[in-house]
């Protein structure tokens, strides 16, 4: 028996093991519902103590303990911490939560911070166990098993065992630690008593390969010892087969890096000339697109791939050239390709293109028979996170791209051009015009080309109010019907 004066607490609670959370939870509930103050309880684990358990008070009839929902899960994690004071600390948290239900949300409260620090330590230790367990194989064939020795800081074997089951289902394995072991026979998980390092196999043939990999994946020109030790503290090293290489790698790094730098560039390897001749024969000097005045739309499309007439090519994926039969009677000219068009390399395939298609269809215009292109052939945008926000091409870019538009018109010789929106009108007429005011009108250019003015179909997409959107769609349909009449 211990001297009575050391046993001041009114209640003594015995837990079955270091990880007996259910036992703690039951006792804590009884205590809290009977208004037993934290300082009146002493907590013990059976194996560490000869202290008897006091009879725990019964839960008063109808009494209920209400704690924030996530407290139990968080307490269960912190419970795995090796701090012997955790039982009492968690009870104190519980005690405070009765009157301060928001306690867990107050990051600056010392108890809330301690809880978080304990959880973090347990999670980190768990993560390190996932990372640094090293299995060694014993036996072959039916006898094949994998055994590991690991020394965790906290009581985490039970909570980690399922991870290893999910990962190594098709393998028979055992993880030994000083306080507990986990064993999976391919079918059933068993948690057993602790073991000693000598109980685990001392080596594995594959370790030589692993050490070879570790040595060679390291770049001596990038030595960062502190960064390594922050994530892989030395306490783990003694059980990692690759760690014994570290001191020599560090010691030799400076010299290895210097050797890399001072080694003079040498003459090309012997096979290099052969490889070059076979795979990269000297190319014909390529003509610039300007020299190659293409005689067909396909030739023009090919030439436009390398267009550098304005800087828009730098950020875009590809040139999106016009599409359609080269004897089309009408050419529709949009503004510029958008996100989807830039990826696909085809004009009018994105959301606005879909609206356009369906209205053309309603108007009885066969898209297969018309030529569709854009005033500017590269997508101009501002990146915003994972989206590209369309930005309007400026007059210079429109002007630069007229080089291609003019040639498309010269080759196709259409009877009619449809300017979809202000940018297209600017490109076709060479000056800015008020599109909404002149919508539905046909302007004849000096060269005799008739240009029909309307809006860009993306305008319809931007209207949110359904009735207004429908009305705008009708207007555009009306325009397209007019285009059909003009084509006839």
């Amino acid at each position, binding site marked *: 028996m211990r001297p009575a004066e050391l046993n001041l607490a009114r209640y003594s609670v015995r837990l079955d093991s270091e990880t007996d959370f259910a036992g703690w939870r039951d006792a804590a509930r009884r205590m809290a519902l009977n208004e037993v103050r934290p300082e009146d309880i002493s907590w013990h684990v059976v194996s560490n103590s000869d202290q008897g358990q006091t009879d725990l008070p019964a839960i008063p009839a109808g009494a209920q303990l209400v704690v924030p929902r996530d407290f139990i899960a968080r307490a269960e994690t912190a419970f795995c911490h090796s701090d012997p004071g955790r039982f009492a600390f968690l009870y104190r948290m519980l005690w405070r939560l009765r009157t301060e239900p928001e306690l867990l949300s107050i990051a600056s409260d010392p108890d809330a911070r301690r809880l978080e620090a304990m959880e973090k330590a347990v999670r980190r230790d768990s993560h390190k166990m996932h990372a640094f367990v090293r299995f060694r194989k014993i036996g072959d064939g039916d006898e094949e098993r994998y055994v590991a020795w690991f020394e965790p800081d906290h009581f985490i074997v039970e909570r980690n065992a399922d991870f290893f089951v999910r990962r190594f289902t098709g393998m028979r394995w055992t993880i030994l630690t000083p306080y507990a072991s986990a064993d999976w026979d391919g079918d059933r998980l068993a948690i057993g008593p602790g073991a000693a390092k000598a109980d685990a196999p001392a080596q594995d043939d594959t370790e030589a390969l692993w050490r070879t990999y570790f040595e060679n994946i390291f770049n001596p020109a*990038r030595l960062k010892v502190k960064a390594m030790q922050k994530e892989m503290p030395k306490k783990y090293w003694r059980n990692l087969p690759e760690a014994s290489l570290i001191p020599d790698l560090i010691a030799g790094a400076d010299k290895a890096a210097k050797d890399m730098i001072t080694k003079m560039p040498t003459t090309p390897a012997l096979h290099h000339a052969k490889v070059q001749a076979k795979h990269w024969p000297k190319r014909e000097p390529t003509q610039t697109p300007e020299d190659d005045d293409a005689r067909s739309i396909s030739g023009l499309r090919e030439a436009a791939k390398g267009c550098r007439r304005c800087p828009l090519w730098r950020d875009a*994926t590809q040139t999106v050239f016009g599409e359609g039969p080269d004897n089309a009677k009408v050419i529709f000219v949009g503004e510029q390709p958008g996100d989807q068009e830039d*990826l*696909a390399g085809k004009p009018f395939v994105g959301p606005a293109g879909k609206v356009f298609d369906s209205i053309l269809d309603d108007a009885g215009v066969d898209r297969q028979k018309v030529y569709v292109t854009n005033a500017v052939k590269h997508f101009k945008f*501002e*990146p915003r996170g994972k989206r590209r926000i369309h930005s309007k091409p400026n007059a210079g870019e429109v002007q630069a791209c007229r080089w291609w538009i003019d040639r498309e018109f010269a080759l196709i010789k259409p009877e009619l051009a449809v300017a979809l929106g202000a940018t297209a009108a600017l490109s076709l007429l060479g000056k800015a015009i008020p599109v909404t005011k002149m919508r539905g009108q046909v302007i004849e250019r000096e060269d005799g080309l008739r240009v029909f003015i309307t809006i860009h179909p993306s305008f319809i997409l931007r209207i949110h109010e359904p009735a207004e959107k429908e009305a705008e769609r009708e207007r555009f349909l009306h325009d397209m019907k007019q285009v059909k009449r003009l084509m006839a």
Partner: protein
Amino acid sequence: MSALTVREKLAILSDAAKYDASCASSGSAKKDSLTSGGIGSTEGMGICHSYAPDGRCISLLKILLTNFCIYDCSYCINRSSSNVRRARFSIDEVVKLTMDFYRRNYIEGLFLSSGVIRSPDETMGEMVEVARRLRLEEKFSGYIHLKTIPESSAELVEKAGLYADRLSINVELPTDEGVKRLAPEKKPETIRLSMAKLRQKMEEKAEPTLRTKKRERFAPGGQSTQMIVGADKTSDDGILHTSARLYGSYHLRRVYYSAFSPIPDSSSSLPLQKPPLMREHRLYQADWLMRFYGFSQPEILAGSSDGMLDLTIDPKLAWALRNRGRFPVDINRADREALLRVPGLGTKVVAKILETRRHRRMRLEDVGRICQSIAKLRPFIIAEGWSPGALTDKLGLRGKIVQSCEQLALF
């Protein structure tokens, strides 16, 4: 010449792969081997199984299938003119190595890249075969990252996406001009198109099919890329511009920056010096500002004289010092966006501040308790009982913060 042993090949082909910066094994769909009875799992978060003395995490068996290559990119140790020792793994050898390493819990999976031999399709076909064998014959559910070869056929890329968690295509260098100069046989146009096709394929497969209502599996870990920093003269602003374009255009999960490292038998067209590691670090920090802190690319370096990130202080602090008019920010009232702009406040701390202040007003000490250091923070915030007064506008502020951060680091 006698045949190389697996160990000799491993030495050559892991050495050949060490200049590639990417190592992540996170962000894929969850899967485990409970139903298949096989080996392997991915649970969303990757695990670093070891660390090399260069501070980089080792989570995958990162190797080349072969380091024979028909390309002659001057920054690459495997270029055809290099005198490096050559080796070539068989498909069997890669599968066995991966399984042997995985069973011993050395790795999360495989990151397979390759030099291009004979033709892009032949090489890509072998890489896909490794992945297929792992998935179907070995019932392997661990992580697989394949480095796609831009010129390879659409069918092969589609198959690769079926077996791999992540696909990547290297943009190599931040500008097309750089690629043309240092990797004369590579075509920036093809690289862009390949990334565009991958994004389209991922989006197409992410749509539930009409019949089964199930999404098809296609590279659930998305696509990533890597570019080499410091081998050409592109400024940090130019590099970040390229990254912003890549994130926006091809929905990449990550852009990796790899400080150009001198390589043995280096080509004479490149700087022979230690890799600019701090610059690489600052670029990663700036990349985070774009992805998690709501910064647009142009504003990160707006107002700087040379378009380069400050090597002595982090990019957020540098930005705050250039934009003092936006400070101080009131900890107890400012919205999330404004708090995320305060130097020293990370996304987690900001979440905690927002939660805590619902219940009580926060003092400077309260903020200090939940973040690493208050030194950087003090001139930029207002808290209960704390106002920085003229401190925010003080001329010597930069020096003061740098000094106090350094002092703190001593303890």
